[in-house]
């Protein structure tokens, strides 16, 4: 129980810091990084939750979240490199 409390406290302090950066973050990349970190923290929270409630199958869900997080970060960054989704390779040269 004490372990759960410690993990939760640490994770939520981290989430709070990430939210502050997300809200105040002067540049676009601060915000992208904040969202990515937030996804990682969600993965950690789910893993800890599964560990404490003794349900190891939560790890699978946490892993899927990690994958979604990675793909969406790539999508966002690619979007800002090429300014579009459909014709990424065609317009890449003149950006």
């Amino acid at each position, binding site marked *: 129980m004490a372990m759960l409390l410690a993990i939760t406290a640490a994770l939520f302090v981290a989430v709070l810091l990430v939210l502050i950066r997300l809200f105040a973050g002067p540049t676009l990349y601060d*915000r992208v990084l904040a*969202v990515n970190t937030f996804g990682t923290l*969600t993965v950690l929270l789910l893993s800890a939750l599964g560990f404490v409630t003794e349900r190891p199958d939560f790890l699978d869900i946490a892993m*899927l979240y990690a994958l979604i997080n990675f793909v969406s970060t790539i999508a966002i960054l690619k979007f800002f490199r090429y*300014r579009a989704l459909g014709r990424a390779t065609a317009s890449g040269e003149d950006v």
Partner: protein
Amino acid sequence: MSPGLVGIAIIDILLFTFLVVTAIAILRLRNLFGVVMLAGVFSLLSAALFVTLDAVDVAFTEAAVGAGISTVLMLGTIALTFREEKKPSHSALLPILVCAVAGAALIYGTRDMPAFGAPDTPVQTHVAPDYIARTPVETGVPNIVTAVLASYRGYDTLGETAVIFTAAIAVLLLLGASGKRRESKDSEGKE
């Protein structure tokens, strides 16, 4: 309450607090890129809440659609429109009032609901015992939710899959066709 439940309750309260903070931040922020990122975080927070409620499949959908696809779609919209939100021209008093009244009505409605996890609710006593008793005998699928989705409602799930597959193919054909045409036009121009 057992220690595990108390822990989950603490996590729930913290998650809801962050949900409210994120929603207020979305309202206050004028930079639309920040708003899209915050909406993704909002979606991940709701997904975490769904997981603590044991609704893992709903959480999957929320994370994939809310944090994944919607973020990309909204970014696509921003690229076509503006990156800064205009100052609202009218006062927010009436919308706040409507929201407050609707929220109060919903909270009043929850007073009639059974306690969380109560075993004597219609959900637990109506068809659930039948499924629990008959699923292993009738289908042989170890997971009851999977048995309901893939066996008892097999045709329903098949139809859903066909619809989503058709939609995905149509979207891919439309997007892919326009991209290819532009590419060939570009190469013609270079030659």
